[in-house]
C-alpha cells in the first residue's frame, strides 16, 4: 500500500491543490456536460409532447 492513511492520501505529498484541483474540475466538467445533455433531451421531449397535444386527433 502506498498510503499509510486517509490524511496522507488527501495531502498527496504536499501537492493536494494541484492534484485535487485537476481531478475535481475534470469530474465537475463531466457532471455538467451530462446534466446539460439530459436537460436538452427533456426540453425537446417536452416541446414535442406540447405540439403533439395541440394537434387535433385524426
Amino acid at each position: 500500500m502506498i498510503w499509510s492513511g486517509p490524511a496522507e492520501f488527501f495531502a498527496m505529498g504536499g501537492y493536494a491543490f494541484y492534484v485535487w484541483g485537476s481531478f475535481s474540475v475534470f469530474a465537475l466538467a463531466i457532471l455538467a456536460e451530462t446534466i446539460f445533455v439530459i436537460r436538452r433531451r427533456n426540453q425537446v421531449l417536452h416541446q414535442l409532447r406540447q405540439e403533439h397535444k395541440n394537434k387535433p386527433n385524426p
Partner: protein
Amino acid sequence: MLSLINWFRYASPQTFYPLAGRMIPWFAGAAAGFAAAGLYIGFFVAPTDAQQGQVYRVIFIHVAASWLSMFIYLVMAGWAAIGLSLNTRLSFMMARALAPTGAMFAFLSLWTGALWGKPTWGAWWVWDARLTSELILLFLFLGVMALQAAIDDPRRGDRAGALLAIVGAINVPIIYFSVIWWNTLHQGASVSIARAPSMAKTMLAGMLLMSLACWMYSIAMSLARARCIMLEREKHTAWVADLAGSER
C-alpha cells in the same frame, strides 16, 4: 452490396435514433467501469514518481483528456467530410454532437496541464509549441460551434462548420508532432508505437484505462447529444411525431 445497403439504412436519423438509444447505456457503463479501474490503479497501485512525487498523478486525466481532444477533432472532421461529400444528414448531426465534448476535453487538457505545470515547471502557462497548438485546438472547437450556431439555416450552418472543421484538422498533427519538431518545455511522447513505453507498467495501465473511460464516455455523450439534435431538427417529420406520442 447487401452490407452497403444495411449500412446506409442506419445513416438515416429515423433508424439510427433507436439504435443509438440502445447503445448509450453500454458505453456509459463501460466508461464507469474503466474509470473505476483506472482511478483505483492511478491512486492505489501506481507507485510514487521518483522525480515528481505525487503530483504526477495528474497524468491519468491529463493524457486522457489530451488524446481525446485530438481524436474527437479528427472524428468530427471525418463526419464533416462525409457530410460534405455525401450530403448525409446524420453525418452533420454527429459532427455537431461531437464538438462540445471535444471542446470540453481540450479545456480539461489545458486546465490539468496548467495545474501540473505550475509545480513542475514553475509556470501555469508557457507559449510552448505543444501548449499553444492545444489552445488553438480549443479555439477551433469553439469556432466550429459558433459558426454552426451563428447561421440560422441549419443545413448551411452545417456546411460552414464542416468546412472550418476540415481545414482546422491540420492542427492535430501539429499538436502531436510539436514535441518532436520544436524544442518544447513539454516532455516528449510517453507512449509511442515505435518503442517501449518509458514508464512503469502500472502507470501506463492507469493512463490507458482512464483514456478508454474517456473514450467510452465521449461515445455515450455524443450519441445522447445526437439524439437530441435529431429530435430538434426533425421535429415536423412523421417519425418524430409518432415518437412524441409514444415516448414518455
